[in-house]
Each structure stands twice: as C-alpha cells, then as structure tokens.
C-alpha cells in the first residue's frame, strides 16, 4: 500500500500534468515554447507523460535567434525525433530581413529582445491560442505573481493589474478572439526541484550544462562564450577555461560559471553550495531593476 502523502516532486509533476491536460482540453491550438534550456526540455518530457501512451498533441515552437549554441540545436532535433514530437522553428533573422525589427548594434548587441516580435508573429501565423512555457515563479520578482494561466491581450501584452484570480485548481482559459494565454505548468518548481527531478527520473540534458573546456572571455562581470556574434572589445581576451552554463539561451547573453561538475549529482552539490541565483548569469536582466517586468509587458516569454 502506498502512503497518501506524496513526496513533493510527485505532487509537482502531477500538478504540471494536470495543467497541460487543461490546456489541451480548453484550447484549440496550443503550442509549447521550446527554448533549448532545461526547463523547456523538462516541459517536453512532462507533456509526453501527460498524454502517454498517446503522442504530445501540440507542436513545439522554437524561436531561433540565429545565435544558438550548436549543442542546443543538435539536442533539440534528437529530442524531437525520440519523442516523435512535431517541431516548428521561426527565425529572428527573417524579421530582420523583412525590416520588421532593427538589430541592436554595439558590443552588447543582443537579439534576445527581438525574439518577442518573431514570437508574436509566429503565434499569429499559427493561430495559436495558448503558448505553454517553462517559466517558474522563483526565477525573478516579477514572476512571483504570475498565474498558471496568464492572459495576454491581442497585442500579446501582459497587464499585471488585470490578471484573473486563480482559485483551487480551477483555471479559466476563456478569452476573446485574437487574445491568447501563456501557460506555465512549472510555476511552483524551483531550480533545485528541476535538478532533483532530472536526477530522480534520469532525464538527459544537453552537454552545455556540464563542465567542459571552452574559450571564454570576461565582460561586465560575466563570463561569455567566445563567438563571432560577440566581437571582442579592446582589452578583452579569450581564455580556455573549465566552465558550464546554468541557463541556456542566446549565446550573446548567457553567462558561464567556473565549474567542475560533470554529473547531475555534482551539479546539485554545486548549486546547494552556490550563492548566486540563476538569473544572475543573464545579462538581459541587469539592464534596469525592472527589466524583466518591462519585457513581460511587451510579450516576452
């Protein structure tokens, strides 16, 4: 006989599965926003579980900035093959070529902000009425008040003062034509929970998360991977160091940390001892104190 009180990881998993099933039951054309990071990889695995033995009943949507790590793309394609999932890729480069957006210039130019336009274009094109994302409430202050079902107006914008109350596990996905929802099944997970679950379930993660040697350079107290997308400034020089990434995003703004952790167990041990939050390695949040909130209002992931 099993105990009634579940170890909490199972509760988090059951909650995420419940939320994804609600999405499929309540929306016509959901998509899963795939970024290549551990949270969205976990999300894909949980989607697989939610509808097992059936296939994942919605496509994965990847907004490719053109500045991805090659490891990310290889891992993505293999995951899609193994889970027999459907993948849709849309390119920031297309929006630049069409003159929809103007690329930032200068040494810290990043396409991270431009993603928003490509994403909203893609959601419109696919007539997607729900976009499932891997965001967690523990990541950043502005996300602590985010809902599981987050309403976006017809411009894809988030209004923090006009969010619906969420009671019990009753999620209201009703909306007007042209509006859509962002849905966050991992809302209640913390970074540690993600790793404990990966460990417990033996889920494979991209090699970027594990310690490896790479050419890197320092800029604005961050360690960045050497890449043609980031020309070196006078005084900067690359060094070959043993590093790993705590988050995986666009190469231009994903910081590395010095690490010797080569297994999930070692990563957990490292994180337990570490004293910097995950987003502390992201350049895009450091721009202003309310950077995340501002980007969310515009329709960022």
């Amino acid at each position, binding site marked *: 006989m099993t105990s*009634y009180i579940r170890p909490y990881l199972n509760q988090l998993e059951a909650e995420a599965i419940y939320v994804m099933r609600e999405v*499929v039951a309540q929306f016509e054309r959901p998509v899963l926003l795939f970024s290549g990071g551990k949270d969205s990889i976990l999300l894909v695995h949980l989607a697989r579980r939610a509808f097992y033995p059936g296939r994942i009943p919605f496509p994965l949507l990847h907004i490719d900035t053109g500045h991805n790590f090659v490891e990310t793309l290889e891992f993505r394609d293999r995951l899609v093959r193994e889970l027999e999932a459907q993948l849709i890729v849309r390119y920031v480069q297309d929006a630049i070529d069409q003159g929809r957006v103007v690329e930032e210039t200068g040494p810290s130019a990043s396409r991270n902000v431009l993603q928003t336009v490509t994403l909203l274009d893609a959601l419109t094109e696919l007539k997607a009425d729900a976009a499932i994302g891997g965001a967690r409430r523990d990541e950043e202050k502005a996300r602590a008040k985010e809902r599981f079902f987050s309403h976006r107006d017809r411009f894809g914008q988030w209004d923090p*003062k006009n969010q*619906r*109350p969420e009671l019990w*596990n009753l999620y209201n996905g009703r909306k*007007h034509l042209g509006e859509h929802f962002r849905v966050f099944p991992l809302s209640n997970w913390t970074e540690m929970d993600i790793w404990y679950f990966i460990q417990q379930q033996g889920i494979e993660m991209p090699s970027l998360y594990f310690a490896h040697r790479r050419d890197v350079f320092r800029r604005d107290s961050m360690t960045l991977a050497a890449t043609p997308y980031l020309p070196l400034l006078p005084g900067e020089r690359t060094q070959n160091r043993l590093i790993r990434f705590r988050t995986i995003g666009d190469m231009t703004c994903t910081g590395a940390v010095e690490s010797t952790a080569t297994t999930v167990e070692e990563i957990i041990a490292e994180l337990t001892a570490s004293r910097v*939050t995950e987003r502390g390695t992201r350049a895009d949040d450091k721009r202003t104190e309310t950077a995340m909130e501002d980007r969310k209002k515009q329709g960022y992931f």
Partner: protein
Amino acid sequence: MLSGDLLRFTTAGSVDDGKSTLIGRLLLDSKAILEDTLAAMERASKQRGDPYLDLALLTDGLRAEREQGITIDVAYRYFSTPRRKFIIADTPGHVQYTRNMVTGASTAELAIVLIDARKGVLTQSKRHGFLASLLQIPHILVAVNKMDLVDFDESTFQAIVEDYRGFASKLAVQDIAFIPISALLGDNVVNRGVNMPWYDGPSLLHHLEHVNVGAGRNLVDFRFPVQMALRPHQDFRGFAGQIASGSITPGEEVVALPSGRTSRVRKISTYGGELAEASAGDSVVIVLEDELDVSRGDMLVRRHNLPQVASRFECILCWMNEEPLNPEGTYLLQHTTRQVRATISELNYRIDVDTLHREPAQTLQLNEIGRVQLTTSQPLFFDPYQINRATGGFILIDPYTHNTVAAGMIRGQAQELDDIAPRTPERPKSSNVVWESTAIMRAAREERNGHQAAMLWFTGLSGSGKTTVARLLERRLFAVGAQTFYLDGDNVRHGLNGDLGFSAADRQENIRRVAEVARLAFDHGAIVICTFISPFERDRKFARSLLPEGRFIEIFTKCDIELCKRRDPKGLYAKALRGEIQEFTGISSPYEAPTAAELVIETDLVSAEDAVEQIIGELARRGIIERR
C-alpha cells in the same frame, strides 16, 4: 530531501504588521536568499534611505507596488528545509483585497495571521481568521509580531492569545497556535533567540516543519473528475484526470456520472507504469473494463459512495470583480472539470467580514461575501465544501468579459419540496473540527496485527442468530490473536444511542452513529463486528460507503420469521405481538432483506459453529486473515 513533503501556506496581515519583513526573515534565515538578490536589496534599501536592510523589498515585486509601497496581488514564494518544501502565498491584508486573501487561501493548508503586539487583536486580524475558516484552512498560526517593541512582555502576548482564542471559538477552526516573534530581529522565527525565555514553544519555522500536512485533503471519498478521454489508437481508451479525493485500485467497481453506468477499473495507467493504487493528487489515466461513453466534465466515483447530484444548491460566494453581482444575470460556473451556466435564484444575505453580521443585500460588490442559492443548467456532482474542498469549490465566470468574477463554496443541496422525502443519510460535520488522520497509518497497524482491517456487518431479524454467531466468531478470532472490536445493537442503545427510539428516522441515526464508530475502529486496524437488525437497505449502504471496497462484508442471517418468533430469546416478539412495542421489525415495521450481501447464512439450517466456519472461510478467501 527527496523524501520531504510539501506545505502550502498563506500569510495575511496589514501593511504595518511586518508581513513582508517576516517572509524576508524566513527566507533569509533559512538561506533561501542568494547573494545577488541580497546585494540588489541592499542597493535599493540604501537608495531609499532606509536605516536598515528592508526585508520587505524581497517580496514587493511589481513596480506599481514599489511606487505605492504596498503589495497588491498574491505573490508566491518558495523555500525548503531538509524536512519540507514550502510554498508561501503572500497576500495583502487591506480591506479592499479580500479577493487576494481568498485566492491565496484556496490552496493553503495553513494560514499565518500576523498581529502587531502593540495594537493587539484588530478587526482585520479577525477578518483574516474568518476568511481562513471560510476557506477551510485546517491550521491557523497566529504570529504576534513586534515583540521587541513591547519589551518582550509575556503578559502582552498572553492577553492577545486570550482575546483571539475567544474570537476563534466562534469559527470553524480547530488547530490554532500562537507564537510571539520579532520578525525584524529574528526572535522565534527560525531561531529561538534569547529575548523571550518565558516562551517554551517551538519557533515559527519549527511549527511549519512539523504541522500535519494532508489534513485538508479528503482521503475517503473517491472522486475522479475526467479532464479528457485519451484514445491514441484502437487498443487504448482511457480517461485522464487528477484524483480529487479518496483512492482507487484496479478491479474496483466505479460509476460514471452523469450516465450512472457502471464498470470496473481495469488498470491505472501512467508513463512510469501501472499503479496498484492511486490516491488524491495523483494525475493518472484510468482504463475501464467496459466501453462507457465518458468525456470531459464527467466524474468517476465508487458505487457505494456517491457525491450529491443537484442543479440547485446553497453556497457562499466571494465576489472578486469591480462589476458587482447582477442578480438577474447568467454566469458560467466552473466546477472540477465541468462548465455549466448558472443563475442566482436567491441572494440570502451578505456577511460583514469584520463583525460577522448578516445583512440583507441586493447585490454583492467587489470583496463582499454573501450566501446565495444558485441554479445550474445541468446538475453538478459535488460534496459540501467543508467535507471536500476539491469537489465543493467553484468559480463564476462572466460570459462576456470572460473574467473570473467570484469564488464559491457549496454548502449543500437547496431544499425543495421533492427533496424532503427520506434520502440516504448524509455525513454531517460539526463546525469546529478538522479531520486528523491517525498518525499511524492503517497499513502499519494491519502489518503488526497480522491481518487486514474489515467490517463484518450482521443484519437480520431479531432472533435470527446475529449475536450468537457473532460472539462465537469473535472468540475464535480473539483466540488466534486478531484485533477485534464488537458493536452490538442493544449495547449501544444503553449509552451512545440511548436518546434514540425506533422510528425510521431514529433507526437511521442509530446506524449512522454506529457506522461512524465502526469506521474509526476500522481505521485502527480492527476486524469490526457489528450486529444490528439494520432493516433498511439505505442505512446499510451508508455504512458500506464509509469503507474501501472489499472491506465491508455484509452478513445476512436469514431465518424464517416464524422460527424467530418461536426462538424469541428476549421475549420481544411476544411483547410486540401484544402491541406493547411499537415499530418492531417483522411485526409492525418492515425488514428489507439484502439483495447483494457478501454472505448469507441460513441460521434455520446450519449450526452456529458451522456458520462461524463459513465466515472464517470467507475472510481467508478474501485475504483478510491468513488461511490456516
């Protein structure tokens, strides 16, 4: 770490009670705040010219709040200790934000009510307690904060405790604890501190780590709202959902609502493999033996433990929208996975959350709470909220704006003329209780006893041999070391049920009480032997509904009434026939013979010893005791 469980709690307090500071202190002292976050806080604190590190900066997330200096929405915070993971729903305490408190409380198992030691019990402290009890949060923890500003004075603390206890006795709250703290300095938050040697209770975190979780969950009544049917290929058809309450095992009989069709659970499927048992909170796929037409919004339940089914019911509504309740309007009602249309058939009264007075009302405004009767376009399958939070709560949605406009808690079916006919007894619950699962699980007790728990329910006419067979049976079980518990009809009427007569209503109450007592003994691992005439099928069904399938064994001692009259061991038939006893079963009151008893013993044909052999054989066959 992986073996830890999860506690969701809510914090309520007004701006000045130091709620954000308390949360900041919990996160800081439990080491959930990391270096860069702390550095950002220090930067911001310095910029505003605060004399000390403002812990509240950690939780006041949105820009608008920082500008106004108040929290305006529910924020969720996370931390964990080696014992537990915690989810804090941090809700603002302003009068205009009842909406947020109700939202945060809906998923919480514990509420921290903050009281400023200098100010004592204010109206808003009472409001928080009232909302916590309305939402059926099982545990309340009153944190008396700012003890540093009253010189850590014990009598100040004691006066607040007494004051609040007096108020709480009027609410449906059983477990309430009081802790004197200083969130600013940290006393009794995570560490005990040295300033209050007179306080010998646990620190606040210690209390959070040790309070019983799961008390808010109903583990008895199996309810499975279907989220969707899964049919990936020809050979697989299952129903996906999260078990709202109770538990289920393969092989058990279930009923699909609303169709009322029955089938058995063939398997409980998950990605990780098939389960031998699934219980409240599990997300699973249930595959049935038969092809039933089941879809989203339907509910699977146990045949002998049905929810209420009604399209008109009483409820408490908490209004959450700027647009007030339109008593003539139609709303969408979302309950479990079911969505129906609802109209307000009656607005009974509004509750003043500060005085708890009832007032007549024409409508409900934002943040107001009232009692109403709703009528739905299709029936709901529900349990009263105080028995089952998962199947008693619902939301109302405006069909035009699509906003969630109200939270509702069902109290029960609305009484209508055709409802007054006798029904299966319900399970009433006193207002001041919280179900405490016995700390030792039944499984552990069963393992030590060396047998499973069960309820053997003897039914039959007076003189049909129930007591004779049951006594002999108990001696046999006792002799082999079994844990037995014997409840007899005559004996309970000397004490527990001494106030009851023999009318149909009193008989029903008689059985209800003994069935509940028997269930408690069952939970303690016993083989419970009950001998009651129990002439009515619906009463026996009720007793059956309290137990997991396979553990209730109905034993019908079948005997010709003429033989019973001749036996008449207590001289009762003689009296009844002389008209000295009213409503005597078999003479002046009916006996409804069981149609599906697990065991029928024809006591006019077999001896008591043979009957006992028959029962022992059946218990062994069912795996309740070991076969010898």
